């Protein structure tokens, strides 16, 4: 896909979803918590285009409000992970030696946990709240950014501009923040956009397993879990939250690909 097209398409999808979820209180046709038991599992109709769930709540309104949860968790988890990863990876790459060795061995340990397993283990002992989900996703999320930053800093630290800054008397902190981090930011941005897609999938996965956002709060993953019991009689419970997740993840992946081609052409395939 051409670079410009990827950025416009991915960015466009995310912009629309962002506006729709931010304006959820205005756009939602109903209160997402309002129940009407007699109308439970009702099929889509003009007043409720996505139908109703088992408690008679409007699915469109819950999908819009659920998007706020997913995007908030995704953005917060990636922000915390990037912050931790860039600082830790920067220190490892810049200081080198024992520090680098120790930090890299710690990242090896975190990388030994496949996917969201560590988050699942953490959520089994933490109370299922939005911020605990952010913490559990950040606990393993920082590792990728730390490795990326370390590799970039290792490549940059012997360059003339860093040596010049050092000779001019700049402190290590200043060299890291003013000279090295500014040059590391492009690949980190690319990684973060794809990482946010992963964080949204992970949050939905945790909520699907019952370890994430708890009812009655709307969450795409929890809505899918609820829909599983009614696949035969009410497939609309499963279809719409799934489309919302897939669209968001697809938008972020396309945007990430476009940004990679733009900011890091050496990675272009």
């Amino acid at each position, binding site marked *: 896909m051409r670079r410009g097209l990827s950025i416009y398409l991915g960015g466009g999808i995310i912009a629309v979803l962002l506006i729709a979820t931010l304006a959820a209180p205005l756009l939602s046709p109903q209160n997402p918590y309002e129940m009407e038991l007699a109308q439970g599992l009702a099929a889509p109709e003009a007043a409720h285009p996505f139908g109703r769930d088992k408690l008679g709540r409007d699915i469109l309104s819950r999908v819009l409000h659920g998007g706020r949860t997913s995007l908030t968790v995704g953005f917060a988890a990636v922000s915390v992970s990037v912050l931790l990863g860039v600082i830790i990876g920067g220190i490892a790459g810049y200081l080198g030696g024992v520090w680098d060795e120790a930090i890299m061995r710690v990242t090896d340990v975190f990388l*030994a*946990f496949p*996917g969201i397993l560590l988050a699942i283990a953490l959520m089994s*002992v933490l109370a299922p709240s939005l911020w605990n989900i952010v913490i559990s996703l950040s606990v393993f999320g920082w590792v990728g950014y730390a490795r990326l930053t370390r590799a970039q800093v290792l490549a940059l630290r012997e360059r003339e501009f860093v040596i010049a800054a050092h000779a001019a008397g700049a402190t290590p902190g200043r060299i890291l923040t003013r000279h090295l981090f500014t040059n590391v930011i492009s690949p980190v941005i690319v990684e973060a956009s794809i990482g946010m897609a992963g964080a949204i999938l992970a949050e939905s996965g945790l909520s699907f397993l019952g370890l994430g956002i708890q009812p009655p709060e709307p969450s795409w993953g929890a809505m899918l879990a609820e829909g599983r019991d009614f696949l035969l009689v009410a497939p609309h419970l499963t279809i719409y939250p799934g489309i919302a997740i897939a669209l968001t993840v*697809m938008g972020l992946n396309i945007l990430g690909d476009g940004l990679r081609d733009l900011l890091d052409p050496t990675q272009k395939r």
Partner: protein
Amino acid sequence: MRKFLLRRILLLIPVLWGVTTLVFIVTQVLPGDPVDLMLGETARPAQREQLRKTLGLDRPLGVQYADYMGGLLRGDLGNSLHQKRAVSAIIFERTYASAELTLASMAVALLISLPLGITAARRQGTALDLGAGFLAVAGASMPVFWLGPLLIIVFSIGLGWLPVSGREGSLSLILPAVTLGAALSPILMRMARSSLLEVLPQDYISAARAKGISEKRVLWLHALKNACLPLITILSLQLGALLSGAIITETVFAWPGVGRLVIQAIASRDYPLVQGCVLFIAAVYVSANFLADIAYAWLDPRVRLT
């Protein structure tokens, strides 16, 4: 090769120690009392004290850690609180189902991704290439907990061809394997395409063609053989995604593997079982990566020198 093997084994030891310690920290040190979680807030103090004693939580943390590590070294993962049996035996009973699903989904992923990747590389820049690229992006965006139910709606409920869930007969393996395999195939397809694109313009391919070897033979015997190396790396790296995807896929299809066991153990607050399952999955992942490293070094001698 022997030196490489020794170095890799030595590197494995601190990782395994770190993994086991991290699991101990997560399940026993972090805020959130397991006794509260297991019994609920309404339990009587005597009940709490009894469970605390049963779990060994009344002892100092250092003693608990030493006991935990000692148990692990003897292969003892403790006893399940609900099933009153050894955790290792319960996990062992579930491994066959998990292995079956993992291998089947890897096969599905290769069956989907290789033909698509090869077609995309051979027809680079055409509508077919673009179509395959779109399929890869769309596939990577579909979570297994959505694709699974969609496949059930179509193939089990709509067409009635395949069972909805459970593990009875070979037909019941198809939907979980396709769900999990489809999640893995986009990245494999991309890798197959890009590896082939790097190999196809090389001189030895032109030489093979000049010798009059059929295009099919050039592709499958000469090009794909070298393009497979990065695929092995990706496949081993993706085993992690496969294992965590299996936790959700097994839950969707009520597949009786280790992944579903973790979720059942969490739901029943069976802490020793949760701890054992997490350790087991992490150990499988670390071992698979270790074996992939060895296989890679064996296939490509340059790797041993790095």
